[in-house]
Structure formats: structure tokens, C-alpha cells
């Protein structure tokens, strides 16, 4: 991170230091190598004392001293070798010791040969390269330099056999520097290229192992089956674990074709055939690859195969398998849903036609499955079933019938089994269709125009009967209340509240559709209020208040004294009148009397809620209800007791009107509204 700001000289110094000082890590190979080299070097040095004694003897020096000095000098490396655990340090001690040996040789070789004895420094310095460590050479060279300088000053006779000048020492030093530089280069190269090779190999092996581990991790977790095979089908190298989960343990041959044959012989045969074809290389590779089998059903699982050629010394294939079982099931479900949608749509246009189809199909399915009938008759029923289903758009049934016919023709299917399949498929479909279409089919369908004209005619005979008939075109009260009840349940679910018990208490009464549409819409606000604010948040809260655990919401409507009265009653917390009073006061409304408060309850913008949700809390819902009631000439009331619940009541007049008027309004309600 600092290299960018480094000065050139510092950078050179750092690189030089990096060159001379080896990386701290000592690999196993270097450790073993140095242990051996150090041992040999120590033995080599231990060979010196007798030689030194001989040299001393020949040069008239003290043999005892020669033996004593050399042995003393040898103590260092011997102890180091014995006790120091770091082989590079031992090498350094050996290096310095060898220089001392050379110095002793020069010392005990005093006389005419003394200058020649200096060669030994250079010989030993060169030998240091075996330690593959430039530091050893540098340290040894420094030891020589120190030795020469010290003895040149204190005991020149130990170094030179003549009166050498300082220049002589410097010339010797220059030679040492040159040789050291060369030796450093050789040692470092030795370290990097030979000793380090081991580390290089180890690093690469480790990297490769890591990559294999990463790859295996991917293969263990990938959702797709990945297998590489050669052209004989043999599985090569690692494969995704999911393959074993899909197909079970591989066969001893490790051949994908054999493996797949365990669950699907035909697919395996195709694959084998295709691989042979690839190996033969007669047909174009692209063609053969395109014709390799791609859809496998194995143990109830549906898989899609694709193949990628891997070119190499021998062609291999990467086989990629994806499970599509769920996807196919979803697609089948979608197709069924679409079919039902189509049939429902058709039923809206032609209810009796669809009802007839349902009956006829059920009858045919029974015939197909009827073991008492002859095979020909059953097959004929199957064929008719196929045609009918196809013509009405039930392709799932049509396709199934066709498959069954094919299987029956090929002779390897039992009619009973196949018929059971058809019956099962039809039953599943019928169970979904019946609740939707069956109820429709049970109704009588006439157009509004037919109905109105019938009522007009009846009117001449009986006004009451005409009124009753007109009522048929109106919404039953109970239907409206049921819708509100459903809204309440959905709301409770949306708010995460327990669903209250909903009671509908409606008179058998029908109301003109348009006249009350706005009222029903704003009544939804009252229902929301009841669920969101009125009813408790949890069963526990109710239990703590001594109430039944499940809340109650009563939706009632009746016709009394020429008025329609709709009540929404909950047995929840009740209105907190005190809070409402302060909310009203904040809005500048009167809040002194009970009457004031009731008015405030239905006022716009008064909410006791501190948070506004998307459902309620803005304080405008009850205002809308009051307005809708007023427009119909009615009014709203509220009764609430803290802890006991709330009842919101809407009263709107429902005058008995002239039949003429009723007819006109019925006609209006069945003509499209004109928006100006």
C-alpha cells in the first residue's frame, strides 16, 4: 500500500533485501535438504583439525594450538547443529565457521605459502551456495571482512607474509565482493528454481485441490444434473450429486446408458444408439446431437436432457439434465384451469348446453367404465366421449381418450384400467365444474324483456302477482348482507384478526338494485369499522374481558313501518366516547351532549385512530354512510357501550309505490345507465 509513495532508492533497497533474505516460510523439502546439507557440512568441518595440525607442523607452527583453535571454533556449529531448530540459522553458523577455518589455515600456513592459503576463503565462499541461501554468503563475506580488518590492524602476520598495504586488503575485499555477488545469484537461483520448485508444485496442487473442492461444492448443490460422459457412455470425472439422488447408485460399469436403463430402457437404448452414431462420425455431429433423446421419465420424475460436446483428444459430452416434473404439473394445472374458465364462459352464454354436456359426458364415462357392457360398446362410448370433449374445448379429456384409444389399439392395455383412468380424470374435472355450473344449470333463464312483458300481462289479472314478479328482478336482501359478511371475514384475515362469527338476520325481501347501490357501498364502511375498531384484536383480549373467545358480528335488515332498517352490530370494545369527544373538539365540533357525540360519530374527518390504515381510520367512512342514508331520505343512529359493543343502524323510508312506477324503475334497472 505504500509502494506507490516509495522513493526509487528505497525501492531498490527493498528489492535487494527481498532477494537476499529468503521468504520466511520453510517448506518440507527445504527443511529436509538443509538438514542433510548442514550435517555433511559439519562433518566436512570436523575433518579440518587433523589437516590444520599437519599444516601447522609443516609450517613450523604449534600443532597443539592448531588442534585447540580448530576444535574450539567447531564448538559453535556443533552446538548449533545439536540445539538450534532452525536449519537456515545452522547454515549461517556453518558458513561463518568455514570462514574462521580458512582464517586459521591462513594463520597456521604462515610462510611462503600463506598467500596461496587465501584461496581457501574463495573456495569455501563458493561452496556456501549449497545452502541455497544468499544470507549465508553475505554473513560469511562479512565475517571475512571483519577478520581481515581486525587482524590487519592487530596481527598482520596472521594474514599476510609481507608488509601488505591497506590497498592489498581492499583488493582482497573486492574479490570477495565479486565472488559473493555471483554466489548470492547462484544460491538464490538454486533456492527459487530447485528448492522452491517443491513449493511451487505444492502451491499448485493446493490450488487445484481447492478448485476441485469448489467445483464439487457446486456439483453437490446444483439443481441440474451435470454428467460428463465419453462416447461409450462411461461417466468421466466429477458429477452433480443430484444425479445419484435421481437415479440411485450408479451401476458398476459407471456407464450412463446402463444407469438410465435401470429406470427407462428405451431412453437408454436411444442414448446408446446416438453415442455409437457420434463415435462412427458418419452423420454430421449437429444432426446426431439434435437427435439424442431429450425427455426422460425415470421413477415418476420428468427430466429434460441437453448435450454439449467437449472437444479434446477424444470427444466427450457434457450431459445437462433439468427436472421439469413440477413445471409440467403446473402447466397441466394451467391447462385445466383454462379449460374450466372456457367452460364457465361458455356456460354464461349457453347454460343449458353446458349442463347437457356435463350430463351427457357423465353418462358416457359411466358407460366406458361399465364392466357389464361389451368391449365394443365401451370403446364406442370412449370414442364419442373423445369427440364431445374435443368439440366443447375440454382438450385434457379429449387427449386422454385419444391416448387410451391408442394404447387399447396396440393391445397392451386393459380396458378396465384405462376406463378407470378416464373416470378419475372426469371426476376430478366434474368436481370442480359442478359447484360453478351445476347451480347455474338449475335456474330458469329468461331475458329481462321477457320477464317485464310477462309482468305487464299478469298485471291485467292481478296487481299483487305482478308485484311479486317484479320482485324477482331485484336483489334479495340476504344476498347483500352475505356479501357484507364476506367482506368482514376477508378484512379480518387482512388485519390478522380472528374471524368473527357472522350472523345474517334478513327478512325475505328484495330491493331495487340501483336505488340502494350507494347505501350498500357505504354500509361496507360500517362493517370495516366494526371489524377494525370494534372487535378485539385477539381471542385472548376477549377472554380477558370475560367475553366468548370468538367475536360476533350481526348483519340484520328488516322492513318495518314503511322503512328499511339495516343494523350492524358487533360485540367488541364499544366506542370510546371520551376519545371521540376530544377528537371532535380538536375538529372544532360540539362535544357536550350525547347527541353531539352521536353526531360527531358520523361526522367527516373525526377519527379516534392515531394511525391511518388502508382499510379505515380516516374518519370519513361513517360520514359517507350518513350521507347515503340522507339521500334516500333516511338517517343513521349509533348505540354503543364501552366493553359491550356497538350497533350502527340505518333507517331509510321504503314507500309502497304505484305499480306503474315499479315497472318503470324495473325497466330502468335493466337498461344500461347513461352517463352524461
Amino acid at each position: 500500500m505504500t509502494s506507490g509513495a516509495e522513493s526509487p532508492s528505497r525501492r531498490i533497497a527493498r528489492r535487494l533485501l527481498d532477494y537476499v533474505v529468503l521468504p520466511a516460510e520453510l517448506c518440507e523439502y527445504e527443511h529436509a535438504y538443509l538438514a542433510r546439507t548442514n550435517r555433511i557440512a559439519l562433518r566436512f568441518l570436523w575433518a579440518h583439525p587433523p589437516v590444520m595440525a599437519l599444516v601447522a607442523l609443516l609450517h613450523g607452527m604449534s600443532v597443539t594450538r592448531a588442534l585447540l583453535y580448530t576444535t574450539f571454533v567447531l564448538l559453535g556449529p556443533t552446538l548449533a547443529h545439536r540445539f538450534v531448530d532452525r536449519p537456515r540459522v545452522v547454515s549461517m553458523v556453518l558458513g561463518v565457521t568455514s570462514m574462521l577455518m580458512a582464517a586459521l589455515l591462513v594463520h597456521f600456513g604462515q610462510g611462503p605459502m600463506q598467500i596461496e592459503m587465501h584461496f581457501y576463503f574463495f573456495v569455501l565462499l563458493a561452496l556456501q551456495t549449497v545452502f541455497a541461501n544468499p544470507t549465508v554468503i553475505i554473513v560469511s563475506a562479512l565475517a571475512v571482512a571483519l577478520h581481515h580488518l581486525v587482524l590487519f590492524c592487530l596481527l598482520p602476520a596472521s594474514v599476510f607474509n609481507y608488509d601488505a598495504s591497506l590497498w592489498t586488503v581492499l583488493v582482497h575485499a573486492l574479490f570477495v565482493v565479486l565472488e559473493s555477488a555471483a554466489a548470492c545469484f547462484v544460491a538464490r537461483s538454486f533456492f527459487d528454481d530447485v528448492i522452491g520448485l517443491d513449493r511451487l508444485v505444492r502451491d499448485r496442487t493446493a490450488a487445484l485441490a481447492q478448485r476441485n473442492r469448489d467445483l464439487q461444492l457446486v456439483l453437490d448443490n446444483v439443481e441440474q444434473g451435470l454428467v460428463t460422459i465419453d462416447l461409450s457412455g462411461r461417466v468421466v470425472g466429477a458429477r452433480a450429486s443430484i444425479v445419484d439422488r435421481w437415479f440411485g447408485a450408479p451401476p458398476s460399469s459407471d456407464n450412463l446408458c446402463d444407469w438410465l436403463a435401470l429406470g427407462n430402457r428405451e431412453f437408454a437404448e436411444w442414448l446408446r444408439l446416438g453415442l455409437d452414431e457420434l463415435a462412427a462420425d458418419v452423420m454430421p455431429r449437429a444432426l446426431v446431437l439434435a437427435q439424442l433423446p431429450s425427455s426422460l421419465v425415470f421413477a415418476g420424475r420428468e427430466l429434460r436432457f441437453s448435450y454439449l460436446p467437449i472437444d479434446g483428444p477424444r470427444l466427450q459430452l457434457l450431459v445437462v439434465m433439468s427436472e421439469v416434473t413440477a413445471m409440467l404439473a403446473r402447466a397441466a394445472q394451467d391447462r385445466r384451469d383454462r379449460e374450466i374458465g372456457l367452460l364457465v364462459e361458455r356456460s354464461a352464454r349457453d347454460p343449458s348446453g353446458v349442463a347437457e354436456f356435463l350430463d351427457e359426458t357423465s353418462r358416457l364415462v359411466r358407460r366406458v367404465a361399465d364392466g357389464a357392457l361389451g368391449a365394443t360398446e365401451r370403446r364406442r362410448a370412449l370414442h364419442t366421449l373423445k369427440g364431445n370433449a374435443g368439440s366443447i374445448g375440454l382438450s385434457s379429456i379429449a387427449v386422454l381418450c385419444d391416448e387410451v384409444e391408442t394404447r387399447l389399439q396396440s393391445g397392451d392395455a386393459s380396458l378396465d384400467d384405462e376406463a378407470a383412468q378416464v373416470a378419475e380424470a372426469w371426476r376430478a374435472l366434474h368436481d370442480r365444474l359442478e359447484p360453478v355450473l351445476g347451480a347455474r344449470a338449475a335456474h330458469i333463464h329468461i331475458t329481462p324483456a321477457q320477464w317485464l312483458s310477462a309482468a305487464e300481462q299478469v298485471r291485467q289479472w292481478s296487481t299483487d302477482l305482478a308485484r311479486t314478479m317484479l320482485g324477482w328482478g331485484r336483489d334479495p336482501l340476504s344476498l347483500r348482507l352475505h356479501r357484507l359478511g364476506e367482506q368482514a371475514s376477508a378484512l379480518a384475515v387482512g388485519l390478522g384478526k380472528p374471524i368473527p362469527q357472522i350472523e345474517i338476520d334478513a327478512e325475505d325481501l328484495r330491493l331495487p338494485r340501483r336505488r340502494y347501490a350507494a347505501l350498500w357501498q357505504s354500509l361496507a364502511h360500517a362493517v370495516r369499522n366494526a371489524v377494525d375498531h370494534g372487535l378485539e384484536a385477539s381471542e385472548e383480549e376477549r377472554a380477558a374481558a370475560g367475553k366468548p373467545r370468538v367475536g360476533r358480528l350481526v348483519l340484520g335488515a328488516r322492513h318495518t313501518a314503511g322503512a328499511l332498517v339495516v343494523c350492524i352490530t358487533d360485540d367488541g370494545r364499544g366506542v370510546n366516547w371520551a376519545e371521540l369527544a376530544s377528537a371532535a373538539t380538536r375538529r372544532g365540533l360540539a362535544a357536550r351532549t350525547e347527541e353531539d357525540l352521536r353526531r360527531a360519530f358520523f361526522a367527516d374527518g373525526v377519527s379516534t385512530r392515531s394511525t391511518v390504515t388502508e382499510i379505515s381510520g380516516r374518519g370519513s367512512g361513517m360520514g359517507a354512510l350518513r350521507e347515503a342514508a340522507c339521500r334516500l331520505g333516511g338517517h343513521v343512529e349509533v348505540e354503543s357501550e364501552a366493553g359491550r359493543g356497538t350497533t350502527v343502524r340505518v333507517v331509510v323510508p321504503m314507500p309502497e309505490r304505484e305499480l306503474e312506477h315499479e315497472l318503470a324503475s324495473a325497466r330502468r334497472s335493466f337498461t344500461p345507465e347513461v352517463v352524461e
Partner: protein
Amino acid sequence: MSTTVMVVDDSFTIREQVSRALEAAGYDVLQAVDGVDALEKYRASPQIALVVCDVNMPRMSGIEFLEQAREVGSAPVVMLTTEGQVELIRRAKSLGASGWITKPFKADLLVAAARKLAPQG
């Protein structure tokens, strides 16, 4: 002179599809409607360099044609098959068919096969 390919299939549609693809690629195409017809035309036109032959045909099947075609000439024969006929393909291969093309086929792959088996001069 362009290279001649004989297309043998009892289905007019398939015959036309194969012929059109090969003609577009510069081949001369000779059509035959079944094995018998194919053998006659093969004898009459020894310059045929490749035969593309359906397996299931009336009168004489592709397999029977293969058995007898060897006595007429040595042009490579490629079988046209539908899926699910492993045994038939094995049989055809053992009788010397060069390979097979599954119906429905892709025109470019068919042409690639023709180019490999009967290179144009």
C-alpha cells in the same frame, strides 16, 4: 453435373419437404413412393449418390429396400424414421444404413447430412 439424391417416402408431404430442402441446396432430386419404385429407379439411375428413405411404406418397406439396394449400388442410405423405433434403426444400421433422421426434421440438418455423405462435385 450436380449430385443426385433419391427421396423415398409414401407420404407426398414428406417427399416434397425433403426434396425442396435438397434442391435448394443444389442437389438433383429423384422421388420414389415406396421400396419397389425406389429399386426400379435406383437400377435405372446408377448416378444416385445418396438415398433418403422412409422406413414404413406399403408394398416394400425401407428395411426390405435396404436389403436389396446393396445389390444395385453402394450409395449411402439415410433412413427417415419417427421416434420410438430403436429396433428398426438397429436393424437398418446392421443392413448398412449410414444413419437416420427423425421426423419431423430440420432442413438444415438434413442438408448437412447430405453434404457430408454425398459432397457436391
